[in-house]
């Protein structure tokens, strides 16, 4: 890793990619073994003080490690092409590649660590390396701001996690993860889980802890946003999963809270995604939505644990795990295409684009596939995991009491609503960026991106299709992960019912049938219309003879009616000057409008303002005089001395 800055400049990216693959290969072996039921232990005895640091690869970590490796390889390959535009910034670039390796490594260690202290160290390493990766474009003020915001929020998360680990340490005398399990079996589960959930939830982006996501993702280079959204956010999910598998009681209460929070997260995320015009911000909000969907699965599984319904547990947790994989696939695909668009047009503003399908047809198809998959449309992978969640909810409706009946029906309606809005969001985004006519002149003619950038995207689509068409394999893998952690469920009386296996393989079969039917219709059409006269002309302008590109429907107007309906949640800020009645010849004027995040403007900003206001009173302490600071030091030393002398401490 350290060698990267020393190799000649043109080879750095390649070397980095090679090491990424190497790292991936080394860690994939134990991961695959673990999925087969063979765990790997690794104990480092550091010294007497810190005790033994144990690492462990089990099925859960294996699943996440495979996702990390997959996404990182794709990200690095795409990045070698994407970062060509910054070739001039040599030092910056080599730092970037070193950090990328550190980033991948730390994420892998996070999945393996089994000790609270080690976990926090690698977790921190991951946060900091990703923070520095976000800061690549550090000359821009907005990037710096987003980066600092990210760093601060990650540390708030660490605070919660540290508090939780310390609590366990004082109660059980150990930082090992097994101590947490022990803690859960002898104490009330709710509050400790709450701490962990908040800490991991900040990483995962559960509403209202999401506000770093829509800022950091647009600021980072595209392959980094792809990897961040695809994996780093998922490590929050990994943490939650880890803790969920340790839980011993209070399942129902926690499950209900998680489901409610997740449905709200999903709806909030996708509604915000639908109105934003920055393509990467839109994708970032969409990540929040998908975290909501994953959360619904986790909540369902918990409810299943609480009500003793093994099938519900399997459906919920497998749905969540599979959606984690699916989301990391299509979200990195979408971020990569967004990056390709940015590379060619130098803008992230969708309203300035248009008609790119003629210039970048392959990228357009990539985005289209990603958009379909993320909307959960068959025959792609998003449908499989959403189907599992729907099945889980339907099973939940039947099998748990009245209070949860209502919860389940709301989750069902919520999931359907999320699906609907995500269709609106992605038709809007795809339509605005790739279809129609170009909306504004671009600095240069956009071209299709280089093959090295396209290659990982083909690869992702291939995997996505494999999930969509052969879902049973992936289901059985995730199913084995879940049943390994729930010994009660893995017992002799529980087996995945044949009907479920049937429906899951049916999805793949009938998706294939759908594709076949589609091909049949399309070729019939080709055959029949092949010799017919075909002419081209301008789009029908309803009688108007001088249409211009500016008259096209914009993305903003596409989602305007939704924004208006949901204006209690989507806060639109408009800036314009009203035309007064006595203005006979109104001069040229400007109109601008953007959407604000509800939680940031209504909740967090106010809170921070008040905090800053009260903190102002303590400003005299930090007065910038070194003499004073030395005095503080002496003061505290004296205080400690007196304290020990008088046996107060």
């Amino acid at each position: 890793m350290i060698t990267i800055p020393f190799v000649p400049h043109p080879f750095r990216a390649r070397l980095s990619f090679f090491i990424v693959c190497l790292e991936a290969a080394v860690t994939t072996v134990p991961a695959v073994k673990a999925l087969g039921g063979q765990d790997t232990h690794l104990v480092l005895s550091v010294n007497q003080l810190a005790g033994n640091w144990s690492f462990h690869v089990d099925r859960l970590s294996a699943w996440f490690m495979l996702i990390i490796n997959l996404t990182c390889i794709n990200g690095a390959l795409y990045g070698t092409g994407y970062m060509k535009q910054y070739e001039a910034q040599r030092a910056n670039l080599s730092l970037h590649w070193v950090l990328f390796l550190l980033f991948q490594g730390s994420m892998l260690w996070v999945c393996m660590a089994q000790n609270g202290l080690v976990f926090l160290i690698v977790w921190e390493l991951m946060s900091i390396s990703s923070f520095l990766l976000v800061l690549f474009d550090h000359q821009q003020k907005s990037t710096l701001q987003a980066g600092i915001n990210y760093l601060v929020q990650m540390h708030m998360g660490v605070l919660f996690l540290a508090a939780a680990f310390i609590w366990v340490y004082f109660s059980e005398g150990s930082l090992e993860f097994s101590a947490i399990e022990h803690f859960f079996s002898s104490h009330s589960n709710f509050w400790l889980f709450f701490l962990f959930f908040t800490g991991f939830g900040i990483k995962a982006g559960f509403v209202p802890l999401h506000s770093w996501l829509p800022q950091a993702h647009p600021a980072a280079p595209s392959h980094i946003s792809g990897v961040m959204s695809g994996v780093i956010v998922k490590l929050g999910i990994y943490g939650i999963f880890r803790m969920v598998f340790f839980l011993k009681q209070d399942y129902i209460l926690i499950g209900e809270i998680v489901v409610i929070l997740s449905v709200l997260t999903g709806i909030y995320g996708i509604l915000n995604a639908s109105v934003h015009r920055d393509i990467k911000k839109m994708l970032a909000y969409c990540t929040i939505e998908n975290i909501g969907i994953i959360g619904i699965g986790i909540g369902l599984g918990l409810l299943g644990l609480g009500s003793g319904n093994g099938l519900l547990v399997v459906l919920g947790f497998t749905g969540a795990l599979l959606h984690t994989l699916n989301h990391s696939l299509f979200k990195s695909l979408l971020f990569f295409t967004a990056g390709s668009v940015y590379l060619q047009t130098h803008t992230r503003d969708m309203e300035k684009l248009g008609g790119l399908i003629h210039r970048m047809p392959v990228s357009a198809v990539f985005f289209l596939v990603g958009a379909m998959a993320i909307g959960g449309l068959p025959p792609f992978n998003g449908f499989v995991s959403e189907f599992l969640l729907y099945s889980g909810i339907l099973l939940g409706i039947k099998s748990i009491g009245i209070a949860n009946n209502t919860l389940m029906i709301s989750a069902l309606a919520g999931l359907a609503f999320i699906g609907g809005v995500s269709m609106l969001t992605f038709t809007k985004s795809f339509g605005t960026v790739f279809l129609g006519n170009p909306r504004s002149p671009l600095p240069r003619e956009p071209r299709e991106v280089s093959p090295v950038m396209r290659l990982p995207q083909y690869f992702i689509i291939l995997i996505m299709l494999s999930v969509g068409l052969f879902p049973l394999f992936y289901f059985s893998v995730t199913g084995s992960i879940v049943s390994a952690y729930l010994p009660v469920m893995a017992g002799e009386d529980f087996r995945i019912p044949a009907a479920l296996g049937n429906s899951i393989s049916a999805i793949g079969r009938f998706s294939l049938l759908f594709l076949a039917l589609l091909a049949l219709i399309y070729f019939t059409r080709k055959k029949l219309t092949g010799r017919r006269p075909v002419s081209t002309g301008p789009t029908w302008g309803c009688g108007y003879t001088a249409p211009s590109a500016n008259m096209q429907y914009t993305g903003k107007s596409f989602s305007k009616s939704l924004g208006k309906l949901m204006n209690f949640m989507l806060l639109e800020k408009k800036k314009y000057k009203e035309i007064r009645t006595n203005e006979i010849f109104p001069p040229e004027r400007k109109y601008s409008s953007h959407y604000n995040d509800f939680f940031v403007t209504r909740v967090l900003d106010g809170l921070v303002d008040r905090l800053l206001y009260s903190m102002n009173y303590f400003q005299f302490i930090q007065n910038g005089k070194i003499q004073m600071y030395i005095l503080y030091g002496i003061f505290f030393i004296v205080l400690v001395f007196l304290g020990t002398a008088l046996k107060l401490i």
Partner: protein
Amino acid sequence: MISFILIILTSLFFSGIIIRTKSRASGRKGPGLFQPVKDIIRLFKKGAVYSKTSSFIFQAAPSIYYASILMAIMVIPLGEYRGIISFEGDFVFFAYLLGVGKFFMILAALDTGSSFEGMGASREALFSMFAEPAFFILMGSFALLTGHTSFQEIFASLHFGSYISYILGVLATLVLAMITMVENSRMPFDDPKTHLELTMVHEVMILDNSGFDLGLILHATNLKFAMYGALIANLFMGSFPLYLTIPIFLGIQLLFAVTIGLLESFTARFRMNHNAQYILALSSVSLLIFLGVLLMLGQFS
């Protein structure tokens, strides 16, 4: 299989009946029952005009739309007889298949770069989004009532035990009929006969389609009518034998078509900017069904 054939058959005269009813209601004789089909066949024989702005998506979308609806029809059962596709949770597959078709039709509309078509596309996306929860709450309630999650099992076991289920059936009919109107952009939500592009939904989306593709789209619309009609018919069939279900099926389809015709003749359309709220209100009717189911199961005692 039998339901598939029946639905295809029904689709041939469904819009003919609607048009005939509307003509009769306005005191005209009206065209023959099979006139819409003849129109479609004529379109199938024609060449096409494409917009310069449009891409391959515009040309592929009608086929995808048509395929998605054919697939969706395969899911629908006829009373006890399952559709070609039937598995637990198949109605989710059904809804998402329709979603694929809609997704591409919206994209095709945006592909032309016309502001009118964009407007229609935006409305289509918005309205169908609000109709989605209603359908899922409805099916979720039935899943709770019957304990099954596939169309065929739900419909076959809907009416065991209590006659209250027929009342729920009537409510469900209302919801499904309204969803049909939203999905096909018909009267209370959209007026297919309007002459102003600004106020259209579905019609404006297909302004630029012509020839074979337009034929596919028009026939797909008829298929969609017949498909939802079949869903409604299934609500009342239970597990009757075949010689009863086929007449019931055809009767209900006929009744449904006539009702649509009458509805279109005698009602005014809703205000466009309030449509979303009206459609969302469907979800509350679905919730009513859910409450009814809870009552039937004695969950409140």
